[in-house]
C-alpha cells in the first residue's frame, strides 16, 4: 500500500498518477470471522480498526449495505467537540477528541481536523449560568473551555448579529478552542484503509437481513450475499439500530428520526469558527471549500426517509439569517438528511446486548460523528474483552430501567425534542 505524503504526491504525479494503489481491497465475504461488524460508517470501521490494532483481532469483516461512509458519517455537519457535562459523557468525548487529534498521523490519511474552535452562544443570563456550569466541569476534567463575553465573541466572529436588530441578542458564549470540524468522508476512508492494512475485510453492497442462531445465541448474520458466521456480531448501524435489533427480537429505547443538513455555494473565508446559536437549535461552520455547512433540529417525527421537509428548512434558514445576517444572499446548493437513532436520554449505547453473541453500538443521536474514534475504541474493547471499558461503562441498555439516564439536555423520554 502506498504511503501518503507530499513526496509521494509529486512522485506519482510525475508518473501520470498511475502508480497509486487501492485504498482498501474490495473483499469477498468469507464463510466466517471472529467478529462481524454490521455497518460501514465511521463507528463500524473504527471498531474494526481498533479491534485489529489494539486487540490483535484481525479476522474481522465490516458489512456495509451500501457504500462505506454513506450513512450519517457522510451526511453530517462534521462538528467535533468535547463539551459534555454529565458524568459518564465528559471523559468519553474527551477521549474521542484526543483520538481525533492523533488520527491523521495514526492512519496516514489526512482527516483535516480543523480545531478552529466552537462558540456556543448564550442569549440570556440563565444560559450563561448553564454554560458556566458546563465549562467548569470541562475544565475540572482537563478539557479546555472558556467563557466569553459579548465583546470577546465579537472578536472571534464579527459577522454574527451584534446589531440592535437581533431578536435574541448575544450575551456571551462558551468557547472550546480544540473543537472544530473534520472531513466526514476521510474518516470512513481512512479507517477503512487502516483496517484493511491489518487484514480486515471491508465488504460493501452487503446488507444484513437477519441473524444466524444456535441455541439462542447469535452466531452470524444472514446477508444479501449469503450467511456469514461470526463468534461475535457487533451492530454499528446508526439510524437502523432499532430495525436490526428487532430482527433479533429486541426492543430498544430508541426512535429513528431524520435530521437535515445544508451546504451553500462556496465563498472566500468569512467565518473562522464553528457557531451554535443558543436561541434555536442551529449550528454553522464554513468548510474548507468555502461553503457554509449548516444544520438544525430534527424534523420532529419518526422517520427512516432520508430526506427532509420544508418546515424545518424554513426554520433553519431563518435561524441562519438571524444569527448571521450576511448569509441572506448566499445560496443553498443542496440539502440532504440522515436518519438517526435517538435514545430516550440523548446519550449512546455501547454494550453487550441481552442476547449472547450480539453487541450494540448505537443511539448516537446527532452527536456521533465526533464520537466515532472513541466509540470504535470502546466498542472494540467491549467486543474483545466481553466487558465495557470504564469509558463506556455507563452506556448500558438497562440504565433506563434502573433510573440512571444520562440526559445531557434534561429533555426526558421525548427523543424528538432532544
Amino acid at each position, binding site marked *: 500500500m502506498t504511503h501518503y505524503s507530499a513526496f509521494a504526491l509529486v512522485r506519482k504525479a510525475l508518473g501520470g498518477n498511475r502508480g497509486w494503489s487501492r485504498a482498501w481491497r474490495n473483499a469477498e465475504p468469507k464463510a466466517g470471522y471472529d467478529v462481524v461488524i454490521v455497518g460501514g460508517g465511521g463507528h463500524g470501521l473504527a471498531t474494526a480498526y481498533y479491534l485489529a490494532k489494539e486487540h490483535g483481532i484481525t479476522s474481522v469483516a465490516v458489512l456495509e449495505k451500501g457504500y462505506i461512509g454513506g450513512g450519517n458519517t457522510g451526511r453530517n455537519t462534521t462538528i467535533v467537540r468535547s463539551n459534555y457535562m454529565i458524568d459518564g459523557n465528559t471523559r468519553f468525548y474527551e477521549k474521542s477528541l484526543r483520538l481525533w487529534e492523533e488520527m491523521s498521523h495514526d492512519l496516514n490519511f489526512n482527516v483535516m481536523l480543523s480545531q478552529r474552535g466552537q462558540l456556543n452562544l448564550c442569549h440570556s443570563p440563565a444560559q450563561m449560568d448553564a454554560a458556566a456550569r458546563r465549562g467548569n466541569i470541562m475544565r475540572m476534567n482537563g478539557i479546555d473551555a472558556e467563557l466569553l463575553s459579548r465583546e470577546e465573541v465579537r472578536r472571534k466572529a464579527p459577522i454574527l448579529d451584534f446589531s440592535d436588530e437581533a431578536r435574541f441578542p448575544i450575551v456571551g458564549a462558551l468557547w472550546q478552542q480544540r473543537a472544530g470540524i473534520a472531513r466526514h468522508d476521510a474518516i470512513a476512508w481512512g479507517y477503512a484503509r487502516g483496517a484493511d492494512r491489518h487484514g480486515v475485510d471491508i465488504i460493501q453492497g452487503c446488507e444484513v437481513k437477519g441473524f444466524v442462531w444456535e441455541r439462542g445465541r447469535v452466531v452470524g448474520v444472514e446477508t444479501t450475499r449469503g450467511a456469514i458466521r461470526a463468534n461475535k456480531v457487533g451492530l454499528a448501524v446508526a439510524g437502523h439500530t432499532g430495525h436490526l435489533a428487532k430482527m433479533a427480537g429486541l426492543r430498544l*429505547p430508541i426512535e429513528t428520526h431524520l435530521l437535515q443538513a445544508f451546504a451553500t455555494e462556496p465563498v472566500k473565508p468569512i467565518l473562522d469558527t464553528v457557531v451554535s446559536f443558543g436561541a434555536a437549535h442551529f449550528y454553522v461552520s464554513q468548510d474548507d471549500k468555502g461553503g457554509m455547512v449548516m444544520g438544525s433540529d430534527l424534523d420532529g*417525527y*419518526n422517520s*427512516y426517509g432520508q430526506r427532509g*421537509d420544508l418546515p424545518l428548512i424554513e426554520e433553519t434558514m431563518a435561524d441562519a439569517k438571524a444569527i448571521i445576517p450576511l448569509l441572506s444572499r448566499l445560496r443553498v446548493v443542496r440539502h440532504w438528511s440522515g436518519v438517526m437513532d435517538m435514545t430516550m436520554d440523548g446519550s449512546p449505547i455501547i454494550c453487550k446486548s441481552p442476547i449472547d453473541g450480539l453487541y450494540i453500538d448505537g443511539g448516537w443521536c446527532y452527536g456521533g460523528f465526533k464520537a466515532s474514534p472513541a466509540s470504535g475504541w470502546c466498542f472494540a474493547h467491549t467486543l474483545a474483552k466481553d466487558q465495557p471499558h470504564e469509558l463506556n461503562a455507563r452506556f448500558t441498555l438497562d440504565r*433506563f*430501567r434502573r433510573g440512571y439516564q444520562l440526559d445531557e439536555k434534561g429533555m426526558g423520554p421525548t427523543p*424528538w425534542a432532544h
Partner: protein
Amino acid sequence: MLRITCPFCGERDQVEFAYGGDAASVFPDLADADLDRWTDAVFMRDNPRGDHREFWQHQHGCRQWLYVVRDTVTHEIKSTLPAREPRRAAATHEGRKG
C-alpha cells in the same frame, strides 16, 4: 410537508400540529406500579420501518389529539382518528387497561 387530515378541521399543514410520539405504547394504569411495564411504556419502542401508530395534536386547530397511522419511510398518512376514539374502542372491547 406532512398534510394531516384532522377529522374535525380537514386537511392541514404539518405546522399546525405537534408530534406526540409512539401511540403503540400505552401507559399502564396509574395504580399499576410495575416497574417493567412502566419502563416498557415510557422508554421502549417498536420503532418500525413502515407503518407507525403515533399521536399528533392539532395544536393550532381544534386541539384534538389524533391517532395517526403513518409510514415512516414514505411519510404517507394512512389514517387519522381522534385519539379518544380508538382508546374508547379499546376500553369497551378489551376492558380498560390504563
